[in-house]
């Protein structure tokens, strides 16, 4: 009965690899987000989708590509991983007209 779920929880990979993180929400929300939390715990938005349409696209390298197959899913694909991509990535969701964003448990990505 998890509200916002992410897979995998941990991801360890080599530089140069391509990886994906999946996010699903069962709250019936229409907006989903990806955030990056760095080693100093600073949280920064990367992308957001409303009704499968990209509405926020922060200054993120184009190696990062979000994909929203439907309103309940927002996946993050990362090409050519770099050391600096190591962080915890959080998915979140919200409902239009409501201010609250609900965060997933996070995916800790380690690039070696």
């Amino acid at each position, binding site marked *: 009965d998890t509200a*916002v779920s992410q897979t995998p929880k941990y991801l360890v990979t080599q530089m140069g690899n391509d990886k994906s993180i999946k996010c699903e929400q069962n709250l019936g929300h229409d*907006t989903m987000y990806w955030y990056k939390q760095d080693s*100093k*715990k*600073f*949280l*920064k*938005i990367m992308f*957001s989708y*409303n009704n499968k349409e990209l*509405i*926020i696209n*922060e200054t993120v390298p184009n190696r990062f590509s979000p994909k929203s197959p439907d309103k309940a899913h927002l996946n993050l694909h990362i090409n050519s991983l770099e050391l600096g991509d190591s962080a915890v990535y*959080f998915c*979140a969701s*919200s*409902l*239009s*007209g*409501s*201010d*609250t*964003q*609900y*965060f*997933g*448990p*996070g995916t800790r990505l380690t690039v070696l």
Partner: protein
Amino acid sequence: QQQVKQSPQSLIVQKGGISIINCAYENTAFDYFPWYQQFPGKGPALLIAIRPDVSEKKEGRFTISFNKSAKQFSLHIMDSQPGDSATYFCAAREDGTSYGKLTFGQGTILTVHP
């Protein structure tokens, strides 16, 4: 550049004491100011939020004080408990839409000693 500045970076309080975390912002277009609580290994969770048309909001032991003219807001945790030990983030959102961009402060690690 940091649009929301949070202090202190870390805070140690004795059980039963008052914890105070401060945030300052520059963008006058911000119209929604939430506080999020994050426990180790978990995602942030909304704790309490305020809009600029009120100066204070209280929910249980948690109170937000908001000073629009000074562009500052703060979180007060009364009767702090060891279970309150977590990282606290203030945030701010502009553009009037419920799915607008949240800009977070740097976070405050709160430790409450028994």
